[in-house]
Every structure is written in C-alpha cells, then in structure tokens.
C-alpha cells in the first residue's frame, strides 16, 4: 500500500474521531407547573411540563386524574407559544380540593418513549395524600410487528444493494465468458428486493409511529403527518428517499449496462458509479437514525456502523444473487458460469466477513460500557445471539471456501467434479442465506434495543443494592459508617435523601457531601446535588432526582474536614 493511501486513510479515520461526539439522551422533564407535591390554594388553569428538548405534542400524553381516577383535562396537549420545550394541557376550571396525579408520556427526539408521574394538591384543605396507582404504558420498540417490518426493511435494502453489486461488479464477466448466460434472474431478484425495501420502509415507519403515538397502524391519515415529527421518523423518511434514489440510479445503471462488452462505456461507468455512491449514502442513514449517532465518539461509531452495513449488504445480497443465479442457469451453463462467479464472490465475501466481524466487535466495544453487559443486558444478549449465528454462517461459508470453490475451479480441467461441486454449493449457500437472514433479524432486534448507558459500568463498584421502597441501609467505607435513608424512594416524586456519617461512633461534622444520580438502565442526564448538614453528621437533601422508574446509581462524594475524600456508590431501584 502506498504512503498516499495510508495518509488518506489516516486522515479519514482522524476526521471520524473528531466529529461531534455529543450523545443524545432521552427527553428529560426539567420543570413542572405546578411543581411536584405542591399544595395550591386554587386550581390552576392548565398543567405545564417543560422538557430539555422540544418534544412533539402530537405524541405526548398528559393525564390529570383525581383520587377516583377521573380525568380532569379538557383538551389536547399543545405546545406553549412562549417556550417550544413546554407542553400544556388545559384543566377543568375550579377543580375541587384534593390531590391529583399527573402522568406524562413523551417521545424523545431519538424516537424512544419516556414517561413519569407526580402529584399536586388543590387546597387549602386537600386532605391526606392518596396512594396513587401510576399507570405505565409499554415503551418497547421490540413488538413482533415492529421487528418483522424492521427485518424486512433491512433485508430489502441490504439485499438490493448486495444484489446490485453482484450484478454489476462481480457477476458481469460471466456473460462474456460463458455463452448463453444471462443475468436477468439477478436483475429480477434485485428489482424484487428493492421493491421489498421500498414497501417495507414506509410500513415500518407507519408501525413505529403508531407504536409511539398509541394509534392504530391503520389510522394512516393521522399517522402520515406524524412521520416527520421525530428525528427518528425523519431519518427513516430520508432512508426511503435515499433508497428510492439508489433504486432509480441502479435501474438506470442496469439498463445502460452492456455486459457482453469487456470495457464499460462512459455512460455505464457514470451510471454505475452514481448508483454505488447512492448505495453508500443509503447505508449511512440507519446509523444516523439509530444508536450509532448517539454514542460517543459519534464519528467512529458511524464509521463502524457504515462498514458493518456495507459488509452485511455485500454478503447477504451476494449470497442471494448466487443462489438465484444457480437456480436460473441451465445445467449446461451452470458449472462454467459458477466457476467464473464463485471465486470472484468468495474474495468479496471473505473481505466482507472480516469487515463485518471487525466492525461488529468495534461497535460492541463502543456500545457496551462493561464486559458483563454482554450477558446481563438484553442488548448484550442480542449481540451474543448475532455473534453465534455469525459463527454458524462462517462455518458454512468455510465449506464453500474450502470445498465448493476449489472443486469448481478444478472442474475446468476435470468436468466430472463440476456437478457435485455445484450441488454442494447450492446446499451450502441455501443454508448460508437462511443463517444470514437470521443474522439480519438479530440485527433488527439489536438496533431496536437501547444500548446500556455508560453508567451501567457503575454496577461493578456498588457497595450495596437497595430499593424498591423506603431505604434504610448501612455500609462501611474508608473507615466511616454511612447510613443511607431514602424516603419514599419513588420515581417521579420528591424524595428525601439523608446520609448519616459516623467514625468510631462519633458524627462526622462539617463534611462536604455531594450526591450524583446516574441511571444505569437508560441514558439520562447526570444530576448532582449538594447535601446540607441538618443535624450533626446527618446530610440531607430533598429532590425529585429519580425521574424515571429503574435502577439509579447514587454516588456520594464525601470530603471530611480532616482526612482524605472518598466516594460511596449505592444502587437504588426506584419504582412508581
């Protein structure tokens, strides 16, 4: 490899690494009017929820119910004209005294639903706070419908790109070298795959939007205007547009192609190059719409994702094309034709598999904050399943590489080897196609799951696990005795956090104590609070910090007046 290639490659890698690396977290409620647990002297005209980003009101739910569970809102959720990050819902005027539950659900810019709840009271005599039963709407993006349509979208898009590459770059010489051979079947397969991709992509978007907005998938009139309401939806629309342009360019390239000529014309070269560039652009979009775009360093993860998609497309489409070619060829042309195509495809497939494995490992390392996330989280388990299927596919592929390919090459000299080699090739490629489409399904599952957040790694250094429910737990750290009290330890509610620090039975006074909150099960912004010493050695703070149901890492940074500072991490499960 020349020095120039190394420099260009290095510069490209460097550019990837320095691309913006901001990680997008889920939407986060930053302010509410009324405030959580506030007791008002009169009923407010509306409820106002302010998020850290502009969430889409058409996807949002703000439910306000009394202790009997009766709904008190009088209209749809809408955006505040004063602040685009604020959603409002009008209330019945003059609500009677009592306690009210606000349950909210919103869709983040990245397409993931978030939800929470809090209470407020209308007084002056609201009575005792009821024990509300907070509803919970399933927030999964892994329903069977979504997974199937996502899988079909991937199979269509990746298969079409792979079939096109096989058609115009790998299998092209066979037309010239073997008389009577046509690539029409591969072209039909490409057209079919591209139609599948073109249909499955909007169907997937319809399903996904219906899932997020809690509407029927058949409510197309209401769903279509929502397609572009989130960044995720816009990305899928871009995918459809890019893929449609690629299909157009590819159809033109196939139309102008003359495979019987050895050298391509300028028109052929231009059309093929245009289609390949369009294919490259298409493969950027899934990463930009998914978790790759939300994981730092963003440039590197997007590059890994693109390589992964490209290698997978070449492998999937190439295998499919090979199978179609085998089926379409007559008995007389089959062995000579395969003798031309198989060795060329083997080289591409081998390189693709290497890239696929390498970029997959790179992505896994990038997305997994700790090794045990591989078997402790759904995301890690999906990686394991995908890797297992990849190993099976590689085993089958090695059969082709070591048995079918040499025999097909030898069949030029010894024709009696041709038919058995072709038969073996068909069986192995059929099996490989099945396994590779299984890998694509695993990829559809994987890309539907949120990777564990960086805070997941905190689990290995936790001193204790507490919750759900009121917490009273004592741990020892650095010669200090720490007694943690959390009450009521409920998500989306104002909780009281208290830490009693003693050493040799004496309260530790005058320490500087801060408490940081990291959600270990979902990407959420970190919060940090300073605790105040309310009694000798007792440091407290009330805060609505546990904003979501799930596991939270509570890290106490303690700096005693004398002695070195230390930290203590406790994992807390907060329920609704």
């Amino acid at each position, binding site marked *: 490899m020349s020095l120039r290639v190394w420099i260009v490659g290095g510069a490209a890698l460097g550019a990837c690494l320095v691309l913006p690396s901001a990680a997008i977290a889920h939407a986060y409620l930053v302010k509410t009017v009324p405030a959580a647990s506030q*007791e008002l*002297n*009169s009923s407010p005209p509306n409820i106002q929820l302010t998020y850290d980003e502009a969430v889409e009101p*058409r*996807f949002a*739910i703000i*439910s306000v*119910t009394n*202790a*009997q*569970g009766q*709904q008190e809102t009088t209209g749809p959720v809408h955006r505040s004209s004063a602040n685009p990050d604020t959603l409002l819902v009008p209330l019945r005027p003059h609500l009677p*005294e009592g*306690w009210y*539950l606000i*349950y909210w659900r919103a869709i983040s810019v990245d397409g993931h639903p978030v939800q929470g709840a809090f209470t407020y009271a209308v*007084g*002056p*005599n609201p*009575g*005792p*706070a*009821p*024990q*509300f*039963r907070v*509803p919970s*709407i399933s927030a999964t993006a892994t329903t*069977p*419908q979504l997974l*199937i*349509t996502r899988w*079909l979208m991937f*199979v269509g898009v990746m298969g079409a790109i792979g079939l096109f590459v096989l058609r115009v770059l790998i299998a092209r010489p066979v037309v010239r070298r073997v008389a009577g051979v046509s690539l029409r*079947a591969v072209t*039909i*397969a490409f057209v*079919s795959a591209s139609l*599948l991709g073109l*249909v*499955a992509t909007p*169907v997937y978007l319809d*399903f996904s939007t*219906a899932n997020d*907005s*809690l*509407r*029927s*998938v*058949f*409510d197309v009139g*209401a769903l279509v205007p929502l397609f572009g309401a989130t960044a995720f939806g816009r990305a899928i629309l871009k995918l459809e547009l890019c893929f449609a342009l690629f299909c157009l360019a590819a159809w033109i390239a196939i139309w102008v192609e003359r495979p019987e000529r050895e050298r391509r014309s300028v028109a052929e070269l231009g059309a093929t190059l245009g289609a390949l560039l369009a294919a490259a652009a298409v493969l950027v979009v899934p990463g930009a719409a998914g978790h790759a775009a939300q994981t730092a360093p963003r440039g590197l993860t997007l590059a890994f994702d693109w390589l992964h998609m490209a290698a997978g497309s070449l492998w999937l489409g190439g295998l499919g094309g090979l199978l*179609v070619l085998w*089926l*379409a060829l007559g008995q007389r042309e089959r062995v000579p034709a395969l003798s031309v195509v198989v060795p060329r495809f083997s080289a591409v497939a081998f390189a693709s598999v290497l890239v696929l494995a390498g970029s997959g490992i790179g992505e896994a390392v990038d997305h997994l904050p700790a090794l045990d996330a591989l078997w402790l989280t759904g995301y890690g388990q999906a990686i394991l399943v995908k890797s297992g299927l990849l190993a099976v596919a590689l085993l089958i592929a090695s059969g082709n590489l070591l048995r079918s390919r040499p025999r097909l090459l030898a069949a030029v000299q010894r024709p009696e080897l041709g038919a058995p080699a072709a038969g073996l090739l068909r069986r192995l490629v059929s099996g490989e196609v099945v396994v590779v489409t299984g890998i694509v399904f695993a990829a559809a599952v994987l890309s539907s799951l949120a990777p564990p957040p960086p805070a997941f790694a905190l689990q290995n250094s936790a001193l204790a696990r507490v919750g759900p429910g*009121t917490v009273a737990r004592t741990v020892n750290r650095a010669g200090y005795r720490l007694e943690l009290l959390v*009450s*009521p330890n409920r998500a989306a509610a104002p909780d009281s956090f208290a830490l009693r620090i003693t050493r040799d039975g004496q309260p530790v006074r005058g320490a500087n104590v801060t408490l940081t909150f990291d959600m270990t099960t979902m990407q959420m912004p970190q919060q940090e609070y300073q605790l105040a010493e309310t009694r000798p050695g007792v440091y407290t703070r009330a805060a609505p910090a546990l904003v979501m149901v799930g596991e939270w890492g509570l890290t106490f940074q303690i700096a005693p007046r004398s002695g070195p500072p230390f930290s203590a991490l406790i994992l807390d499960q907060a329920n609704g």
Partner: protein
Amino acid sequence: MRPMRRLSTVILGLTALVGLAACGGSGSGAVSVPKVAPAGTYRLQNFQPAAPVVAGRPTVLSFTIQQPSGQPLSAYRKCCEPHAGVDLIIVRADDSHVQYDDSDIGSGGHVSQPVVFPTPGRYRVVVDAYPAHTTPDQPLNFQLFTWVTVKGAYHPRPVPAYTPTVTSGGYRFQIQGHPSLKAIQATFLTIRVTGPGGRLAVFESWRGALAHAIFIHQGSLDYFHTHVCSPGASYCTSVLGAARVTGSSSGPGVLHVGVLLPEPGTWRLFLLTHIGGRYLTAPFTLKASA
C-alpha cells in the same frame, strides 16, 4: 421456468409477511390516554349519623378511618398534646358556630364522641387525625371532612363585621393595633384578654396549649388551626409548609396568635381558651386581602 416460480413464491411470501405484520393493530383512531385506577386513600368509614339529627340533643358521632391499604387505622398518637388521637372540629355552614371536641378511640380504631348540635342547619365536621406514624410513608397528621344535617329550618346568620373586641364568659378579648392581613403571609395578632374588673386573664393549659386559634373561611369553610404555646410545651407547634406560626404568651392577659390564611376573603377566628376552669370561645371576623 421453475427457478423463477420459486423466486416468485419467495417474493409472495415476503409480501404476505408484510401483510401479516400489519394485522393486529388496535382499532382506535385517537391517542389512548391510560385508565388510571382509583387511588388508595384515607377515608371515613361507617360515619354516623348518616341521617339528619335533632338539634339540642346529644348525638353520637362515630366512625373508623380506613387506610389506603383498606385496613382500619387503629394506632394513634397517644402522647404529645395538642397533637394526639382524633379531634373533631364542627362548624356550622354559615360560620356562626364552632365547637372543638376530643374523641374516644376504641378497639379496632372505632372513634366515637357525643355531640350536641345547637341549632338546625348543616355542619361541617373536620376529623383531625394524628396516626402513630408507624411507617415512614404514613402522614404525621391529616384531616378528613364530612357533613351532618340537623333537622329544622335553617336560618343562616350573616357574618358580623370586624370588631377588635369581643366578650365571652365575662372576659374581654381585644385585638391590639390595626391588623392588615394578607393571604399566604404569616403574621401574628396580639390579643389582650381581661376579666371582670380589668384583671389580666390567667390562661390555663388545655389540650397542650394556652389557646387554640381555629380559622374558618366564609363560604368554603376551609380550616386552619394554630396554637398559642406555653413555655416548655415541646410538642406544641404550628407549622404550615415552610412557615412557623406558633403563637406565644408573654405573660398573663396577652396572647400572640399566629395567622397564616391560605386564601383571601373573610375568615372567622375562633379563639379557644381555658380560663378560671372554664372553656371560652372568642369569635372574631378577619379580612385577608390577596
């Protein structure tokens, strides 16, 4: 062509998969707001009397308090007056009459108290409960509300205008200065109490305090209660939110009454004291501006 037929079958199969995936969506066209189940609440159970009662005759009020778990509340604070057990504050709908009664708590949390309703009309009963606080998520104190109807023609009495001086049981209760009250602003009223011959009243501790100030809003009958505490009465406090409005007495005949009226309008202040072995109620009318 056989291979092409197979290919067509595969394409048809994939199309059918898309169609199948489309099945099973819900039929609703609107965003479905989730149904919220009724909350677990503290509530009065088996409250008696359920029917109208007769004026001037003893009537036994009885009930149990049901906890959010559905179990009756049976463990109440027994110490620490004025915050213990269950108190009953009974207010006539026109704000003309208030009475403050203790109550007996029987086994299983059954609360009962004989009461005499003086005149016909509707009475709001405030049940002021102080649980034993056996679990951290249990409230220290809460109020529940209900109504009792007394048979006969109801003739509401107009709320008298503000006057700084009222007389009760031969004692003269006089608000000092010209109080200017505003809603949600804590303040203190100084009330001078003199007996026959102008002698300064000597307050006796009653239910853990030298005086109980009960505020009732005209119309809504919203309720607010503060105490005038004697020195050393460690359990005697009056805290509303972040505001501490615990009253005090600087000597015989002088009460500093904490006031924190949560909403503007006309309020009645019923100042309950125990002087010379007698319970005295001094009713004032107060105005709170917004």
